[in-house]
Each structure stands twice: as C-alpha cells, then as structure tokens.
C-alpha cells in the first residue's frame, strides 16, 4: 500500500502533446478518477503509470520507489483493462493465479490466495471455467480478482465498466467501490463517465487536452467548477455568453442580452469582461410566479415539453430569443406545463457559473 505521485509528467509524439507537464498526488488508499473526454490524455497517463508507455519527461513514484523507467513487471501494479484482457486459453483459476505464479507463490498458498481473490468477487465456484463461458459482468470480476490477487501497491482501472450494459454497470460500480474500500488499495480510475467518477472517487481529476482542469472532491467538482471546461463537462449545462455588468464582493451581476441579468456568487472577471455562463438543467426551478429575494428570477415561455420518466425536460425561451433547457422532476409541481405557458426560471446565485471564456471547452 502506497501513495502514487506523478511529477511533471509529459508525453509527446513528435509535435503532438498528449500529456502536458502533469503533476498529481494520490494518497495511500485513496480512490482518484481521471475524468475527461476521449483524447484528453487520461488513458496515456494510466499507461505511463503501468509502464506500457514511456513518458517523454517527468517522474512517477509509488511510495518511496521511483518507477519511471521500470518495466511493467517490476512495478507491483494491478491493471484492469477496458477489454478485460483475460487469458482466453487459461481457466479462471489460472488467470487469477498468473500474477501469483510470477511471484513464485506455489502449492497450497497459491490455491488459498486464488480462492480468496475469487471469493472477494463472489466467483468461488467458477475456477474451472474458461473466460468465454462467462458473462461480461463475470469476466469483469475475474479481471478484478486477477489484478488484486498479487496484492499490488496501486490499482489502475482503464474504463473497466464501459463495455457493460447500464444495469450491470450500476451493480459493478457498487461492487468496485466496496472492494476498494475493503482492500484500501491506492486506486487510479480512468473514465469518461462523470456519474461513475463522481460516485466512486474520493477525488476527481478532470482532464482536457493533456492538462488538469480541476483536481478536487466530487462535490467541489460539481458545485464549484474551477474552469469553463469543467462547468461545461460536468452535469447538463446550458451554455450562454455574457458580459460582467457589475461586481459585488466575490460575486457580481452578468448581463446575457435582452435586458436579462443574473447574479452569481462567484465571479473572477472584472466589470465589462466577457464570460461564459453555465446554468445546469437540473439546477433551474420552474415557477409560475416571480421569486423575491436573492434568487435569480427570469421570465420566459415554455416552447417544448418532453417526458422521460423520472424527469420532464422543458425548452424555455427567455430574453432576446435565448433557449434554455430545464430538467424538472416529473413528480414535482412543474411537471405538467403547457406550451406557451408563462414561467419564471429560479436559479440560486450559487448555481450560476460565470467563468472566463476558455477555448476548446465543450458541453
């Protein structure tokens, strides 16, 4: 068990920079996710930690051990692949025993540790099967047992749940979290699925274009996005352009055209500066009367209603022809508004993210 430290890590392929001067420290036993869109460099970081790609620069340390140039077999790492990468010609038992055998574990000790690892993922009875005789979820669990059995210092996951169907994915998420807590192994988890990252991790590292955008606890990532990229990537944001009308302590007022202004609790741009404004669909409440007090209250008209089970989505037109998507709980008061109904959008200033416009951010 050890901490994992990445120190000014970078990877270039000729002119192309995949990972840029990335530093990250994961505490002993901590579960950290690398979250980002495909091509952001998260998998490259993971493969560098595993020793499958050589970094162009920087240092990787596990505990006190520098592993930057060690071959993968000397790193004491467990890796769960997206494709599981089980050995198709070996039984489940032999798959799990593979790492132990490389460490010279033999006989009854080997048998016991393989059984223990399989018991952890509740596959005790499946040792004699071949991977092809098992379902996707079971194969996934074999892959986890195989990674855990040699007791690695650090566990790495490369989008391990993305090949499973939605229901199984939820089950495996819980299983994975339980397992990691039980074993207390330092874990780096790569994913493009924000719900997965937020629910599993102690801290989430949001990456874009080879850089860290924000490294913080899930609640901070969600409620206090540090950059326009994070605000656009997390949740389901409406994205607007605006201009800072006035400042007021840490916050201020932003004007978005058509005479509509919004108060934000936090604002890092000076008066007159251009900002990108992010309003989460799920952070907007629809009311039929204006709201007094500090909450932003914006009049609008319902353009479209779309029912999707737990939620109802509305498209509401506000100000100068701006369309905002609002997600209302289908059991709430605002679940049955007609087209052309007059409504007021209520948004707390804490949920108005006004950030300096960034290039390349996407919603």
């Amino acid at each position, binding site marked *: 068990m050890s901490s994992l430290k990445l120190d000014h890590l970078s990877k270039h392929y000729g002119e192309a920079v995949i990972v840029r001067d990335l530093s990250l420290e994961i505490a002993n036993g901590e579960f950290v996710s690398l979250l980002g869109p495909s091509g952001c460099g998260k998998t490259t970081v993971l493969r560098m930690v595993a*020793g499958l790609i050589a970094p162009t620069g920087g240092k990787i340390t596990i505990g006190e051990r520098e592993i930057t140039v060690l071959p*993968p*077999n000397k790193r004491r790492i*467990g890796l769960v692949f997206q494709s599981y*990468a089980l050995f198709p*010609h070996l039984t489940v038992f032999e798959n799990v025993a593979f*790492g132990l055998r*490389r460490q010279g574990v033999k006989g009854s000790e080997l048998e016991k540790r393989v059984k223990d690892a399989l018991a952890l993922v509740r596959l005790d009875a499946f040792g004699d099967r071949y991977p092809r005789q098992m379902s996707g979820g079971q194969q996934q669990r074999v892959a986890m047992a195989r990674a855990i059995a040699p007791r690695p210092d650090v566990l790495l996951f490369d989008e391990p749940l993305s090949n499973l169907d939605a229901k199984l994915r939820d089950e495996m998420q819980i299983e994975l979290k339980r397992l990691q807590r039980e074993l207390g192994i330092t874990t780096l988890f790569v994913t493009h699925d924000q719900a997965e990252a937020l629910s599993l991790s102690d801290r989430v590292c949001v990456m874009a274009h080879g850089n860290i955008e924000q490294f913080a606890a899930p609640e901070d990532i969600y409620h206090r996005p540090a950059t326009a990229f994070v605000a656009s990537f997390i949740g389901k944001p409406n994205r607007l352009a605006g201009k800072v009308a006035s400042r007021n302590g840490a916050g201020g007022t932003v004007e978005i055209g058509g005479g509509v202004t919004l108060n934000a609790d936090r604002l890092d741009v000076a008066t007159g500066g251009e900002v990108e404004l992010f309003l989460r669909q799920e952070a907007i409440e629809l009311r039929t009367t204006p709201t007094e007090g500090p909450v932003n209250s914006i009049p609008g008209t319902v353009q479209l209603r779309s029912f999707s089970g737990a939620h109802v989505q509305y498209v509401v037109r506000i100000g100068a022809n701006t369309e905002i998507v609002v997600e209302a709980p289908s059991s709430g008061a605002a679940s049955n508004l007609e087209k052309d109904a007059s409504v007021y959008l209520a948004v707390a200033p804490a949920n108005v993210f006004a950030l300096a416009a960034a290039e390349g951010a996407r919603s």
Partner: protein
Amino acid sequence: MNESKPGLTITSIALLVILFLQLPVIVVVLAAFSSTSYLTIPPQGLTLKWFAKVLSDPVYLDAIRISLTLAVGSTVVSLVLGVAAAYALFKRMLPGTEALTSFLMAPLILPSVVIGVALLQYYSLIGWRGSFAALLLAHVIITVPYIVRSALASLAGVDMSVEEAARVLGANGFTAFRLVTLPLIKPGLVAGALFAFVTSMENVPVTIFVASAKQTTLPILIFSSVEMGVDPSIAAVSTLLIVATVFVLWLAERWTGFHRFI
C-alpha cells in the same frame, strides 16, 4: 431457397475441374498396384511388390530419411526465426516494416530456379557447397515465408492487451510471449509449419542446385528415376508420399481445426 444453390451447369463444371485436377493423382495411385514392370493405365493385375521394393531399397530409404530430416529441421528453424521475425514486424520494432516483410516473403514470388542458381553461386564462393547446413539453410529460406505469413495473420487476431496484462502481472517480455501470445497463435503456427514441412518435403528446383550427390532427397530421386526410365516403384513411392501428406493434414485438422488458417 433454390436461388442460393449453384445451378446444374456450374456444379458439373466444378466437378469436371476437380476430376481434371485429381486425375494424375488417381493415375499414379492406380499405377502403383500394377503387376507389369512399366507404368500402364489401366493397371494390369494387382500387386504390392512395388511397395515392398521401395521399402527395402536402401537408395529410397536413404532419400526418405534425408528428406524427413531436412523437412523437420528446416521447419523447426523456420518456426523459431519466422515467429521471432513476425513478432518484431507486427510490433513494428524496426523501421521499414513493410520493406522487411516483402523481403521475407520474396521467396514465395521469386522463381525457385533463380533462388537455386543464386544459392549455388553463393555457396561455391564461400565454400559451403555440399554441406548439410547449406542445404538446410536453403530450405529455411523457402519455408520461412509460410511461417511469417501465418504468424502475422495469427498475431493480427490476438488482442495485444492480453500480453500487456501478462506484463503488468509480473511476466517479463519473453515469459509473457511464451505463456500468453504463443499459445494463442499456436493453431496458425501449426498450419504454417505444415505448409513449410510440405514445401521442404517436395522441393526440387532449389534442392537440385544446392544438394550434393550424397544428399539425394526423395523428390530429387523420383525426378532422376523418371529420367532413367519409369517403373511402378516410382508410382508406389509417390503413393506413399500422398498417403503421408493426407495423414499429416488430417492429424493437424483434428488437433487444431487449422482449416480456418488457410
């Protein structure tokens, strides 16, 4: 459903082509049982004496022994070199992968006679003529493309992350290859090795230039015997070759289902 079945015309043409291709084989096998002392069709009488003659003739037995040694030897050497080469090419460990692949495959395309003449001159220059090693090397050159080709095709079908998984689990590069990649490409390699074996076993054009008088392989012996006059013992030894080949292919199919790799 009838549209999907070939019509009567196509079926008959196909059968005729197969018959035409297989006719020489049938002729040779029938001729081996003829009791006349010359090749004749249809065979007259029925006898096994030509098989007995072949199997008791030291010249034939010697040729069979040399051919088998050469075929087994060149297949083994080709397997080791060919798999190593294919692995390096597949992983693009070297610059100029395409050029190297074409180079290794060249013996499949180059006329064998050209290879034979070139090797004859080369061996004469370096004083290797007549040595077994020289003959073995010649056969390695013509058999290695079959191994490289089947190994490359098999590697393309293997998810390379399994080898990475083995590496991360503590296996060094060679162990990972030996325990994971090699077993996964084995069926393809068996198919390639069979082609290599058969190619070495039947080769005349290269062997005839390189082999010394003492290194008469079976196909060379058949070739020169035909020149001196045909008797049914040649048909008998050919029949033995055919039977042996069919047996080996049948075994390989049983073991590996290798028809998928041809």
